[in-house]
C-alpha cells in the first residue's frame, strides 16, 4: 500500500498557482528525489504533506490519512529553516524530541552526534549554520518514521557532511519507510535515489525510476535536469 498519495493536489496563493493539480503515489521503501528549480513548488508540496498548508483543491493522504496529529507520528520532517531556539542546548533538543515523538531513538541521536563531534552540552547559539543543520538532520533521522520529508537537507553543508548525510540515509534504509528529498543538488543525491519527480511551475513533468531513465536516455538525472530546465538563451 502507498505511503503517500496525492490526487489533483492544488495550492494557490492569491493569483499565484504554486501547485497545479499534481497526482502521484509513493510506495514504501523508496528513496525519492523531488527535483525542480526554485519556485517550482517543492516546499509547498512538503508543507502540504505536513499540514502546514491546506490544499486549495485535491487531497494528499499519508498512510491513508489526511495530514494531522496522527500523520505527524509517522512523518519525520526536516524543514528548510531551522526552528531551534538559541537559548537551548543540543541536549535540550534531544529531550524535546524524546518528549514529542515516541519513535525517537535518543541513543542513536547521541551516537550520531558523537560521530560528527558535536557535544550535547553545546549551546545552539554557539553552533555554526552548517552544524545547526547537522543537528537538525540527526534529530530527524533518529526517528523511526514511515516517511521522511527532507526539504533541502544538503544545501548548506560542506561536501564531507553531504556524504555523511547521504550515508546516513542509506544506513537508515528500511524497506517499510520512504524518504522524499527535495533538492536542486542532483549530482550529489543521484546514487541514493530510486525514483525522481521533476516539478516545473507546479506541475509534474517527469516521475520515473532513475535507472530506467539512465537506461533509456543514456543520461544522468543531473544531465536530464539541465536539459529539461535549460534557461532560454537570448
Amino acid at each position, binding site marked *: 500500500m502507498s505511503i503517500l498519495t496525492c490526487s489533483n493536489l492544488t495550492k494557490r496563493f492569491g493569483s499565484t498557482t504554486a501547485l497545479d493539480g499534481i497526482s502521484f503515489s509513493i510506495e514504501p521503501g523508496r528513496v525519492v528525489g523531488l527535483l525542480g528549480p526554485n519556485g517550482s513548488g517543492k516546499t509547498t508540496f512538503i508543507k502540504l504533506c505536513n499540514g502546514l498548508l491546506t490544499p486549495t483543491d485535491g487531497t494528499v493522504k499519508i498512510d491513508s490519512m489526511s495530514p494531522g496529529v496522527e500523520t505527524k507520528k509517522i512523518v519525520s520532517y526536516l524543514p528548510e529553516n531551522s526552528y531551534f531556539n538559541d537559548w537551548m542546548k543540543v541536549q535540550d533538543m534531544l529531550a524535546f524530541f524524546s518528549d514529542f515523538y515516541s519513535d525517537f531513538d535518543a541513543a542513536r541521536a547521541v551516537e550520531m552526534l558523537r560521530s560528527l563531534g558535536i557535544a550535547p552540552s553545546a549551546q545552539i547559539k554557539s553552533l555554526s549554520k552548517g552544524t545547526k543543520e547537522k543537528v537538525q538532520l540527526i534529530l530527524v533521522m533518529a526517528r523511526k518514521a514511515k516517511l521522511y520529508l527532507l526539504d533541502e537537507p544538503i544545501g548548506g553543508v560542506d561536501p564531507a557532511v553531504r556524504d555523511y548525510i547521504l550515508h546516513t540515509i542509506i544506513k537508515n534504509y528500511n524497506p517499510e519507510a520512504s524518504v522524499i528529498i527535495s533538492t536542486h543538488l542532483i549530482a550529489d543525491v543521484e546514487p541514493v535515489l*530510486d525514483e525522481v519527480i521533476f516539478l516545473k511551475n507546479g506541475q509534474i513533468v517527469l516521475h520515473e525510476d532513475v*535507472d530506467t531513465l*539512465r537506461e533509456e536516455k543514456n543520461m544522468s538525472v543531473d544531465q536530464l535536469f539541465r536539459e529539461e530546465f535549460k534557461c532560454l538563451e537570448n
Partner: protein
Amino acid sequence: MAWQFDTDRPIYKQLKERILLKIVSGEYGAGTQLPTVRELAEQAAVNPNTLQKALTDLERDGLVYALRTSGRFVTEDKALVRKAKDTLAAEVIDQFLDQMEAIGYTADEAAALIQHTKERK
C-alpha cells in the same frame, strides 16, 4: 570510500560489473558468503534497492545464489565463473582493439606490439 560510477549508465549495471569483477578475480571466492545488501550498499554509497537489483541479476546469471536464512553466496560452479571471466576478458580485448584501430593499428599489429612490450619488461 564510496565507489565511483558513470552517471549516464544504470548504476545497478555498474554495481553488477564491480561485484562480478570481485568474483572472477577471486576476491569473493567460490562458495564464500557475500556481504549483506546493507553492507554492500553502505560500502558503495548507493541505494540498497539498486544494489538488490544488481544481486538479483547476478543470481539470474547463476553466479550468486541465495539461501533463505543465511544470505547470498558465490556459486561453487567454477566453470561458470571461468566462463564469466572469459566473457569479461573478451569485452576488454574488444574495447582495446577498437581503440587500437582508431589509432591506426590492425589486430595483428596490436598483438605484435603487446608481445614486444611484454619482452621489453
